[in-house]
């Protein structure tokens, strides 16, 4: 038993950290979030694609790197740590569902270009109005295999050309952006991941029929776990910022970190961040190696990391005091991403309900 990254995984982590630190300093994050319409540049996407990240967990046969969920969450945590705005998670999500349920021709047509970073993808989960949980989607196709209806809160849909649509009963369709699909931006809580509404007006929909319930469930669990990993990175960053501020900032002639009201708050952050990281790593490993325990592990990871992400970033804001509440400070990008992540792919309560079911409550 070895509950630690192996050398390859460590190397991936280090590369990601170095690359992201260089390319996504917080000034650049701010610029992308506030000034770039899609939240990223073509050059940035090309670089990410050259690193092989869009196809990281896609099978080699489909043009991906064929790595596992552990490698996926290693990169996702670093992306969270950098709060890097990028359509990577959206593209990965579409690719994972295609890999899980695409037919050979769908894989060739849509998955391979996603894995290569040639095209950007996303997944449209939420109806309008969105229900409580990602499994409440009601959209269903017409007899002529077209989709008509509205999907909301779709990340990166402005840039995405390949969209996997989730509908009633968990059915999945592949659509490509065209004239039967209207995309409108939605002002989002989290400016580092752009949201859109999709108006489908008889859009040709190609159902994904290549998988089964189990493969699709696994892909959803991978998506949720990757998002949880992002939140771990976000929380880690927010904690580091709090600790560093607590060491520097003096009030009443001593660093505020010398007061238990602050230092115990920071200790609590560590407890939650390390816990969330353990839960995410465990879920990722189970998704790769222990299919039986994987659904429970993933639900636990997303539930715990959702709460952790929000609580740690909010707690870091409290440590920062007034300055943490200002737009000019970078902390709010972390807080907003963490809060948005907490709601995406099923919130903590939804995943706790999954846990309750799975442990037979």
């Amino acid at each position, binding site marked *: 038993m070895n509950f630690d990254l192996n050398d390859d995984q460590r190397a991936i982590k280090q590369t990601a950290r170095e690359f992201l630190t260089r390319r996504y300093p917080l000034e650049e994050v701010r610029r992308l979030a506030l000034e770039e319409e899609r939240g990223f540049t073509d050059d940035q996407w090309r670089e990410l694609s050259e690193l092989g990240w869009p196809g990281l967990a896609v099978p080699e046969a489909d043009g991906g790197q064929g790595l596992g969920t552990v490698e996926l969450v290693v990169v996702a945590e670093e992306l969270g740590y950098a709060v890097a705005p990028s359509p990577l998670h959206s593209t990965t999500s579409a690719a994972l569902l295609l890999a899980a349920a695409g037919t050979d021709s769908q894989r060739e047509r849509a998955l391979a270009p996603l894995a290569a970073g040639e095209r950007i993808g996303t997944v449209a989960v939420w109806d309008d109005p*969105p229900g409580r949980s990602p499994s409440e989607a009601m959209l269903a196709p017409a007899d002529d295999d077209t989709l008509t209806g509205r999907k*909301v809160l779709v990340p990166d849909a402005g840039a995405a050309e390949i969209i996997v649509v989730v509908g009633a009963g968990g059915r999945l369709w592949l659509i490509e952006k065209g004239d039967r699909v209207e995309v409108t931006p939605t002002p989002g809580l989290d400016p580092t991941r752009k949201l859109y509404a999709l108006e489908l007006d008889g859009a040709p929909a190609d159902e994904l029929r290549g998988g089964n319930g189990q493969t699709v469930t696994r892909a959803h669990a991978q998506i949720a776990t990757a998002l949880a990993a992002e939140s771990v990175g976000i929380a880690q960053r927010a904690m580091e910022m709090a600790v560093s501020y607590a060491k520097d900032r003096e009030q009443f002639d001593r660093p505020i970190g010398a*007061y238990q009201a602050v230092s115990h708050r920071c200790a609590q952050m560590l407890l939650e961040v390390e816990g969330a990281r353990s839960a995410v790593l465990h879920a990722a490993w189970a998704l790769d190696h222990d299919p039986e325990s994987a659904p429970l592990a993933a639900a636990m990871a997303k539930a715990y990391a959702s709460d952790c992400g929000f609580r740690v970033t909010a707690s870091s804001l409290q440590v920062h005091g*007034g300055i943490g509440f200002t737009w000019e400070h970078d902390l709010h990008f972390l807080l907003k991403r963490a809060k948005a992540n907490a*709601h995406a792919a099923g*919130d903590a309560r939804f995943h706790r309900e999954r846990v309750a079911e799975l442990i037979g409550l």
Partner: protein
Amino acid sequence: MDLTLTAEEQAFRDELRAWIEANHPGPKPDSDEAAFEFRRAWQRTVFDAGWAGVAWPQEYGGRGATLVEQAIYGEEMVRARAPALANGLGLAMGGPVVIAHGTEEQKQRYLGPILSAEEIWCQGFSEPQSGSDLASLRTKAVRDGDEWVVTGQKVWTTLAHEAKWCMLVARTDPDAPKHKGLTYFLMDMKQPGVQVRPLVQITGEAEFNELFIEEARIPNDNIVGGEGNGWAVAITTLAHERAGLALALQMELKQLLTAVIERAREQPYNGSTAAADEIIRDRLAQLYIETEVLRLNAYRGLTAQMKYGVPGPEGSLGKWHWAEINQALTELATEIEGPAAMARDGRWTYEFLRARANSIEGGTTEILKNIVAERILGLPRMR
């Protein structure tokens, strides 16, 4: 014990309620600037009718009402969703401080224009390096004949761009111990040495400002409470802020709570409504109770203040308790919204973000707990 209003209190309430109903100016305009002028006009109307400064002495233009009547005034204004008066800080802090520490000349000069909103007030206490530790402030004032020359930086200054007067605490004696060398000034904001820069918050709004003060000049007559006595005067200001706050905050909270409850009744949730969901129901009920407890504590504090002249221990807990409830309530509101909370256009995402500051603004929760522990429970200072 008697929680009903006396005949006088009822008469006061009825008269006020009728007056508000007849004079309510309707909803405020959308743009910030227009909204401010709207609130200024509203305060003028309130003032002309004799309802501004309800508890201030009549000789200075107030109504001479009791604290309970003042509370009724607040309840009624919130109840009718009347606009806030434009000169909030002048009314809640500036006026009371001048009444408590000002000279007769100062009272004559300043109080009237506060009530009529002719002159807006702002507060210059916090500095970038002095948040909770107010006495460590660095803005300095140097005597020059009949004037003082002030240089420094202030932060979290509400309405600075509209204000005529700033309640400014500055260091006049750099050699005195921290708490001793401070003086409380009324600084004219309309002078070249004062630059105002809006401070944008995480909500995207700019409720506050930074103040860059470069050799601004203040006549010696504008000192309140005497040279070197700034700490004591500032503490009075803060005491007035917190005493009034507990009541005002619970009223706003109650409105927010009502809105969340309404929202929960409408929001579809697992096949029924959010209000029918056991967990949300239980949490909302608890927040309802907490809000009531906050209100009851505030009124108990009021009675104590009327009876003994000073606010009772209950009052000091209000600000902290309010922050806790308001943060929990806005978090719950986003959970009721569900995934839609990821969008920025709804009310609740805004309220959620705004509430993050509640445990910081007007005294951090950590400082308030220190105060409760040390001054009420008599626990030793953490030194």
